[in-house]
């Protein structure tokens, strides 16, 4: 089977699996309550009063762009890694647990091509899920509040018009996707070594927690740039004025290194792995 055929097969399997839809459903379960809470809760008027005292806003600060902005931090740090690792962590370990891995590998299929197809499909899922979050937040925000400029609260209050706000959001979501690709790669690597589809999810989160905690200890300050969790908030740089291009490039490079090394290790392990399940 050609590599393109393997890719199609893996994408088709992913689309048919029920667990692939946990992520989109979970994200909608975050986006909708956020919009409902802001629309009908007491925050709306307080927010408008607070923002209008600091910057000049055309229209309401509560709009589609604001919803897309406000859902980013909790999802990037917690929910997207969870949903992405549920799918990526299942790619090899889930097949191993179900016994289908031996059925796949006992066919005349190149192991590395099979692994690469699974990996690319996982990466596609991670990017797609991040994009889904942005588009669904914009759509839900638009239906609740309409369109307007973007008010940003990170490191002071800044305001961007609709066009620039959309550009900044697109950049922020791209950086968020880069972090999810890294998380996806780590979960995928762990998947090669484990027999349970949930174990890679747990271990990925354990690694993230340990890196996050160790990175905060001043003694280990020098190690911090080497932890991928250091770049979890890379998306925030998309809202700085002026843009910190150097910081973004360094962050993306670090995440790309983690991504590449994780897949390299997964490939080395999988090509020599005895399929005993």
């Amino acid at each position, binding site marked *: 089977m050609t590599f393109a055929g393997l890719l199609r097969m893996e994408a088709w399997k992913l689309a*048919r699996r*029920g667990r692939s839809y946990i992520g989109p459903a979970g994200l909608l379960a975050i986006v909708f309550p956020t919009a409902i809470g802001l629309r009908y809760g007491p925050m709306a008027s307080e927010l408008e009063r607070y923002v209008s005292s600091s910057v000049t806003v055309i229209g309401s600060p509560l709009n589609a762009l604001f919803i897309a902005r406000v859902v980013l931090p909790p999802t990037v740090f917690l929910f997207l890694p969870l949903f992405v690792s549920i799918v990526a962590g299942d790619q090899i370990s889930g097949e191993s647990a179900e016994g*289908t891995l*031996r059925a796949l*590998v*006992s066919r*005349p299929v190149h192991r590395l091509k099979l692994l690469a197809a699974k990996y690319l499909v996982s990466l596609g899922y991670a990017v797609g899920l991040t994009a889904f979050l942005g588009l669904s937040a914009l759509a839900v925000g638009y239906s609740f509040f309409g369109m307007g400029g973007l008010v940003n609260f990170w490191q002071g209050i800044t305001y961007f018009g609709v066009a620039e706000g959309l550009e900044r959001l697109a950049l922020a979501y791209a950086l968020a996707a880069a972090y999810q690709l890294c998380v996806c790669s780590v979960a995928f690597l762990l998947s090669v070594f484990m027999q349970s589809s949930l174990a890679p999810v747990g271990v990925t989160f354990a690694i993230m927690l340990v890196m996050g905690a160790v990175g905060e200890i001043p003694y280990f300050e020098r190690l911090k740039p080497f932890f991928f969790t250091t770049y979890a908030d890379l998306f925030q740089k998309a809202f700085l004025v002026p843009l910190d291009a150097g910081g973004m490039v360094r962050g993306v490079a670090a995440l790309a290194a983690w991504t590449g090394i994780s897949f390299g290790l997964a490939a080395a392990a999988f090509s020599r792995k005895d399929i*005993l399940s």
Partner: protein
Amino acid sequence: MDSLCIRTRGLTKRFGARTAVDGLDLEVVRGQTFGFLGPNGSGKSTTIRMLLGLIRPTGGEAFVRGYSVSRERLKALARVGALVETPAFYPFLTARENVRLFGMLSAPVSERQVESALRTVGLDGRMDDRVRTFSHGMKQRLGLACALVAEPELVILDEPTNGLDPEGVREVRELIRSLAETREMTVFLSSHLLHEVEQVCTHVAVISRGRLQASGPVSELVRSQSAGVEFEVDRPDAALEVFRRFVRPDALSVEGRRVRIRVDESEVPGLNRALVTNGVDVSAIERRRRTLEDFYMGVMRQEGPVQ
């Protein structure tokens, strides 16, 4: 073209200190229906996994269709269908989708081939049902369909009748026979069901503790074993006492009132006289047909190379 479909030379697999397969030399000629026998844990499944490239040998080499599995795995497995232990599928896909998916990994398969494979194993009525609704026996049949769909020249089947009812066992037996006879496939069959193996296989190999104990054509191996005679007597213990004067203890066995003794048939009248003289009533004497089971049990008792 190499006449050997499977060849192993000193094939060895160690898991830590445990040797699962120990210097196995095996030859399966094209067109044979080859039975691979051995007790649980004897190394059968490990051997099959090495033949399919699922695990890497610690030593030696396996060749399938003339290609080294270690160095040319894709060529070796290009026309091989396999069912390894309990068949596994994607439960969220239908039987048709599973067969198509696994078939396409071996070769492009048409919808007609998919349906034909499912019909062959008797699943034509459940083609579009999700596999999660299938019984164990149905999954076993589906595994066979997946192994056959790409019309391979070698089929490796590891315990294909596991979980099947007697009717299913009979159908699979007929299927395996037809694979060799009408489709000219080579079949490598691992099974515990010696009666089934005897009925469908032309050749067998017996493996124990990872080592080859015997191999050859079924007809020759079965003939090489002394079949024995069964005496139905009123006092089996007394009969055993009498027989021990004529043969070694390992040539004797008892099942209820039937005492089995491995001797040449010319000795039967003398044995009968000895029983009667010693006050043992004989109600029946029956010549036992030689079976593969006799051969297998004989090899297992000896635990040494027979041929």
